[in-house]
């Protein structure tokens, strides 16, 4: 019996070893420093999003990042999840003009954005985005927390990882900025956050670190809005399965008792 379990444990360890080696290699591929792990309200099995932080993060996105970066997978109606009231979201949405239905003469129209609209993109298409950014394409941020190794840690590290001057011996490309955590250390994006660059409604001091932290949390929510529901359900499912499995073990022992 114990031997069997030891073997199951071994198999598990092997699987883990497999996947760890996978992750570590993708990190090793870039020359960048791995992002230092941060404390997040949403880490761990019981972690949840901090609604106030998400709202601060959305403010940073709206006032800073949204100038160049789209978030196409997020709709205004999703923002109810970060604790904004429907009226507050409607008011924010109404500030944006989006393409409406063609009018009676077939002419294109514009209307204020509503709850069922996506967050508006800053550029009409990728070409316009490149043209406005020196040839670089600002990536869509909806899934950035899932599509980068390190997730929220990486976003926070990147936003705070700029050096004013590249270290001696590093030749920078034209218009490029030195960033400790970016692959190959050269990033087209200029340092986006400034001390008190936004004004938080809840009175939190808007340091660069705080803004980076908040917007990283917001992007984590945007990448996996289902996370809280997933963890809540997961805990119930696992508790149920553990009890069920214990009972099944007792049944198995009982059934086999006449053979042993």
């Amino acid at each position, binding site marked *: 019996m114990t031997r069997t379990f030891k073997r199951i444990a071994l198999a598990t360890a092997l699987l883990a070893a*497999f996947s760890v080696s996978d992750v570590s290699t993708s990190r090793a*591929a*870039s020359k960048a420093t791995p992002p230092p792990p941060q404390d997040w309200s949403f880490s761990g099995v019981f972690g949840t999003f901090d609604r106030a932080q998400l709202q601060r993060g959305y403010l940073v996105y709206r006032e800073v990042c949204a100038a160049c970066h789209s978030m196409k997978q997020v709709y205004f109606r999703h923002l109810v999840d970060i604790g904004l009231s429907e009226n507050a979201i409607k008011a924010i949405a109404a500030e944006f003009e989006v393409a409406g239905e063609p009018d009676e003469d077939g002419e294109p129209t514009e209307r204020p954005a509503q709850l069922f609209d996506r967050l508006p993109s800053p550029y009409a298409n990728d070409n316009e985005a490149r043209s406005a950014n020196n040839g670089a394409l600002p990536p869509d941020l909806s899934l950035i927390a899932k599509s980068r190794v390190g997730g929220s840690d990486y976003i926070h590290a990147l936003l705070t990882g700029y050096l004013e001057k590249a270290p001696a011996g590093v030749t920078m490309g034209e218009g490029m900025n030195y960033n400790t955590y970016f*692959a190959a250390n050269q990033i087209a994006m200029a340092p986006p956050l400034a001390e008190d660059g936004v004004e938080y409604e809840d009175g939190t001091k808007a340091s660069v670190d705080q803004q980076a932290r908040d917007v990283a949390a917001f992007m984590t929510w945007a990448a996996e809005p289902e996370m809280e529901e*997933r*963890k809540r359900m997961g805990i119930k499912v696992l508790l149920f399965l553990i009890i069920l*499995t214990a009972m099944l073990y007792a049944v198995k022992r009982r059934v086999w008792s006449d*053979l042993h």
Partner: protein
Amino acid sequence: MSAAPEWKNPVVRWIDHRLPVFTFTHHSLIDYPTPRNLNYWWNFGSLAGVVLVILIATGLFLAMHYNPNVDYAFDSVERIMRDVNYGWLMRYMHANGASMFFLVVYIHMFRALYYGSYRAPREVLWFIGLFIFLAMMATAFVGYTLPWGQMSFWGATVITNLFSVVPFFGDAIVQWLLGGFAVDNPTLNRFFAFHFLLPFVIFGLVFLHLWALHVHKSNNPLGVDIKTDGDTIPFHPYYTAKDAFGLGVFLIFYFAFAFFAPNYLGHPDNYIPANPLVTPPEIVPEWYFLPFYAILRAVPDNFIDIWGILPILVTAKTAGVILMFASIIVLFFLPWLDRSPVRSARFRPIYKQLYWLFLADCIVLGWVGANPPEGTMLVIGRIATLYYFVHLLVFMPLLSRYEKTRPLPDSISAAVTPQGSSQSAQAQGA
């Protein structure tokens, strides 16, 4: 085996007289004689069946919301994650379920290797199992293309291109697979169609697998044949109870991934929409393909310098592709490569050691497959590839000739029950 039961319910009796489904079920699932000494490694067959059903069920719901068009595929997956009720649950169970399916099947195959379950008279059972494995690989490959992320696109590009090494018809085959000159909308459409079809092909093969299994019954840890009724116990309730407990343990493991680390086994790049103009820094397959990926890339580009004449026949890429397919095809010959008089590694002191080396070798291959093929990694990958074939093609035949096996017990019951062992002691005394 007891005779067919008398069905008391008149409706059951009426149906059974015309189509004996109840008698069949009784013989195959309830009364079915199973060796009494199966250990927990024998759980993985039924686990694989359960995972297949979970994959088909979750896949059906995903297919209702997925859109196989290059302009909408990525967004439709995100819509499933965000707006479809419990869509995230279906998708994470499906994606992690694929990993679990491979894990369970790999354990199932390595169990067969350890206890000699591929040996006569179970060769066809082993073949069908290998066909299931091949069908799984095809299904997983086309399925991974569907989310239309960067790895989907570039993985599909790399793997379909492997077929270009086929002499004369290579390029034509690749175009035929892709439905064009590159991975594009026609590719996605047909991959979706195949991804829906192939699981049912696997399902059919599973039935053949079970049919073949039920002819000669399960092998067992001792590797000796079933001789008397005392060697077996009915499948129900003994193995239904044991399988149910094993399923519970497995589901805890599986759901721990699906609920708490759903993207741990995936690659972050696949959350970037496919872009034919940007190649990812590394193109890496899912973990379950890594050993084969290492074999594929084990042949170095400077192959020409090393071998001198061989490249006239095949290039490095061709050699890699041949090796990769050979690594699976060679498994079909295993029943004849291994001619040991004894099935189970328990009675094969040297094979037992080499078995673990072989397992370690496969894991090393997986680790190498996750890394770029350069420097030490390439060397390790080449040695591990060589050892893979040496184990199967050289060590297995040699061992069956020269290995001194330990004495086998008279029967299963003689080895595992007190009555049986006292009987055999008496028999030996007499």
